[in-house]
């Protein structure tokens, strides 16, 4: 295996090769080489130009702000709600016994299927997207919190007790850190779920946002715009997931999976 510099070089080489091939087969280099209709597979150079257009019109900013706000609100409420219910059911055994199969059933429902209902109930505005995003995040965080409370190491609880600690100390020294580790581990997935929820919600019915703009563009065969928005969503996803996995790595630095300090 070569050093990281080589790997990065080959990666860049591969990517530029692919983009070049893409450009060529969509007629961007020599018109005769075109294999695909640009209405179906947009030309990379035109995608970039369209992206500039989109940004200059001011729509990119307002669409992105809309979608990110929906995703963020969904993530926020999903995490708080999931943690709250997870803790409640983790401690309250009877309620947990009643609700567990129901939660599992709801969790196995593909989340996207509630989108039409949400649009019906809450309209084309932001609320329905925030709620869809909320639902996708909520169950992941709920199950992680719930399992986190349930799988607290009884030996550590004993250790606090023999040191003279009461239930409050058990909660602070054992339950909270142990549950947090489960929640942090689910954070990265939740971030991309939240974004998916917002965009899909916009597909189903809305009047603004990146998902809405994408659907609109596809409808009029403005394929460059579709690809431009995919590119934006990819970049946003990479940044957000990257940030949350760095956060996770920092918060879980005590865990055996990470050997660095």
């Amino acid at each position: 295996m070569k050093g990281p510099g080589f790997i990065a070089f080959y990666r860049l080489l591969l990517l530029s090769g692919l983009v070049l091939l893409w450009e060529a087969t969509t007629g961007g280099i020599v018109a005769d080489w075109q294999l695909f209709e640009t209405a179906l597979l947009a030309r990379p150079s035109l995608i970039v130009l369209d992206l500039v257009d989109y940004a200059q019109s001011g729509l990119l900013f307002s669409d992105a702000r809309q979608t990110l706000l929906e995703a963020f609100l969904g993530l926020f409420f999903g995490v708080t709600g999931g943690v709250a219910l997870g803790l409640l059911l983790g401690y309250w055994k009877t309620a947990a016994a009643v609700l567990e199969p129901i939660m599992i059933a709801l969790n196995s429902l593909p989340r996207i299927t509630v989108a039409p209902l949400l649009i019906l109930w809450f309209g084309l505005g932001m609320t329905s997207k925030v709620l869809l995003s909320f639902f996708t995040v909520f169950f992941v965080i709920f199950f992680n919190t719930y399992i986190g409370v349930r799988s607290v190491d009884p030996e550590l609880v004993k250790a606090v007790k023999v040191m003279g600690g009461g239930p409050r100390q058990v909660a602070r020294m054992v339950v909270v850190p142990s549950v947090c580790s489960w929640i942090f581990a689910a954070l990265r997935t939740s971030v991309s779920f939240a974004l998916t929820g917002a965009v899909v919600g916009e597909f189903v019915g809305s009047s603004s946002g990146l998902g809405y703009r994408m659907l609109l563009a596809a409808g009029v065969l403005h394929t460059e715009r579709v690809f431009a928005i995919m590119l934006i969503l990819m970049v946003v996803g990479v940044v957000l997931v990257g940030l949350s996995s760095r956060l996770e790595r920092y918060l879980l630095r005590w865990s055996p999976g990470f050997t660095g300090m």
Partner: protein
Amino acid sequence: MRIDVEGLSLRFRKGVEVLRDVNFDVRSGEFVALVGPSGCGKSTALNAMATLISREDAEITGTIRVDGVDINDRSDWNQSLGYVFQRDTLFPWRTVRQNVEAGLEIRGWKKVERHRRAQELIDLVGLAGFEDYFPHQISGGMRQRVSLIRTLAYDPQVILMDEPFGALDAQTRLILQGELIKIWSASRKTILFVTHDLAEAITLAERVILFSKRPGRIKSICEVPFPHPRDPFELHGSKEFAEFHAGLWRTVSEDFRADAREVAVPS
């Protein structure tokens, strides 16, 4: 603190009788070892003494008194007790220092005081430089050292130890036994040490209580003649140690062998 165990019997609700009429005492400042074949109930006795067994799980009769008062009537018992587990029960999310400070936090010590006390003990067992490491980053021997000083930190009057060195390699074990002897000699805490290893028991304790196989009863109690402080490395090489060990071994081997037969030929 002095401990008196009188007529202690214990049966789990599932039906297993673990202890039958166990009687012994531990004098204040004494180092006593409980020895017996695995599954004989010695750890259960220790757990009962630490009130770690709930009445829902087991039927317990007899009394355990500390300085003459039943442990169930002493609200301060949990505060004056230390317990070192077989497996190190360090908090994985806390550094070495934060682990050592845990008991002090429970007792509401100020941060500066906690730091000072923890550092003292970390230096004592040669862990200086590892204060900010997490448990998974240090060796098993080091982790068990941290467990030990986490218990010592809040200065409990009685320390119960459940095979604390059982998972360590022979050499590390001797080193830690030596450290424990030093600590005990300097502080004269009351220590009750459970082990299945006869050699370990007579290396450490002033008195050894031998348990029979389940249901655990006391087979015999004997004084260990070697003067303290002892050096485990030196002691293990001595003729006196070998003779004493052999004498005791004859008393217990029957039980240990019976244990082995049970495993070999299940009825």
